[in-house]
């Protein structure tokens, strides 16, 4: 039962796109310094990635690899057009701040390259569920990173002043993003290994009980 469930939830539990795969890290590093930016990026990433991968799954599998990769990139670039127009209406300020990282979301490696390796080997329903959790994994990382960075760099939470005694202004700079993400990656790996260890020790315990 667990073996069937794990790959679908992998985007959050064991194989987070950002923390484990180090994919789509540029927007997290540069734009993930405020929750407002994060909201706009989460919204855009989720829609573009979900629609692109689902539509790309209809591209014939027998085509040469290069043609398929180009098709995926062109599909996501086409989906970007209405998403960008909608974002101009809903998040006009955030779009200005995010700048070039907004279109770069559409050609992220999760859509262009990882679709072949991860999603298109599954059935369509399973792929959709797995994709949902991969997107959720990115969204969670983006939100946590921006929350911590905004709190410690600006002393605010979603633009509301919070009671923080010491501000670390470097966290709003790109280098702060790099270091913060590096620490989060390390922490994620540590948590993952602790969880695996406790799971395997629980399994051993179960086996010992059944042996007796």
């Amino acid at each position, binding site marked *: 039962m667990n073996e069937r469930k794990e790959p679908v939830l992998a985007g959050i539990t064991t194989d987070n796109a950002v923390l484990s795969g*180090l*994919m789509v*890290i*540029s927007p997290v*590093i*540069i734009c993930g310094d405020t929750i407002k930016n994060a909201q706009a990026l989460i919204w855009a990433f989720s829609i573009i990635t979900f629609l692109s991968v689902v539509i790309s799954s209809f591209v014939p599998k027998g085509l040469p*690899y*290069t043609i398929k*990769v*180009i098709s995926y*990139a*062109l599909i996501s*670039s*086409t989906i*970007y*057009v209405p998403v*960008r*127009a909608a974002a101009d209406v809903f998040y006009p300020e955030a779009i200005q701040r995010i*700048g*070039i990282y907004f*279109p*770069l979301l*559409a*050609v992220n*490696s999760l859509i*262009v*390259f990882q679709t072949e390796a991860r999603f298109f080997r599954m059935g369509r329903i399973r792929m959709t569920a797995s994709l949902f959790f991969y997107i959720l994994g990115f969204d969670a990382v983006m939100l946590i990173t921006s929350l911590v960075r905004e709190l410690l760099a600006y002393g605010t939470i979603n633009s509301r002043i919070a009671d923080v005694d010491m501000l670390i202004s*470097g966290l709003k*700079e*790109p*280098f*702060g*993003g*790099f*270091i913060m*993400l*590096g*620490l989060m*990656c*390390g*922490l994620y*790996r*540590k948590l993952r*290994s602790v969880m695996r260890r406790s799971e395997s020790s629980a399994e051993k315990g179960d086996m010992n009980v059944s042996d007796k």
Partner: protein
Amino acid sequence: MYLINDIIAFLAANLILSQALGTSSLFIAANSRKKLVGTAFCILLFTTFGTSCAYIIDSTLPSSAAEFRLLLYTAAVSVFYVIMLTLLYFARPQNHEKLRRYIHLSAFNCAVMGTLFTMSAKAENDSSLLDFGEYVRFGAEAGLGFITAALILTAAYRRLNSSRVPKSFRGGPAMLIYIGIISMAVWSLK
């Protein structure tokens, strides 16, 4: 003194250290010298060709159709992607299988697309930069910047992946922190 200033300006303009563009590709490329040379050379070609196409697109695309810029850039990079693979197939048929992975890795990533959008944004703010020579120069500089960042990372790659680094931080996390520290040093020189 001029040389030091130039080096500082070159590092400060580095798209990886200042804008985190192409960081994932850098991590993939830095694990072997051979891979690094191949990927860096391909990215240099893609950024240089890409910016020359971006110039044509930017100078003809009306501002009301700015949403289509990504689609056009993607189409331009796709054409070059196919040209590169075709040239490689005819020029080095015996190494085609081995070398084409560098082209695959370089075609669609933040280093290439980010360079095109960065130059486009610069030209939008300063119309004097809307010039073919400026675009190509910027593309070549961005490619060289990728090579520089890759060399900086390669210098520490083995240590960052050694058993002396705690297991949870070995590899990717340690490389991110290392790039962060280099980025901080460059930022302080600005």
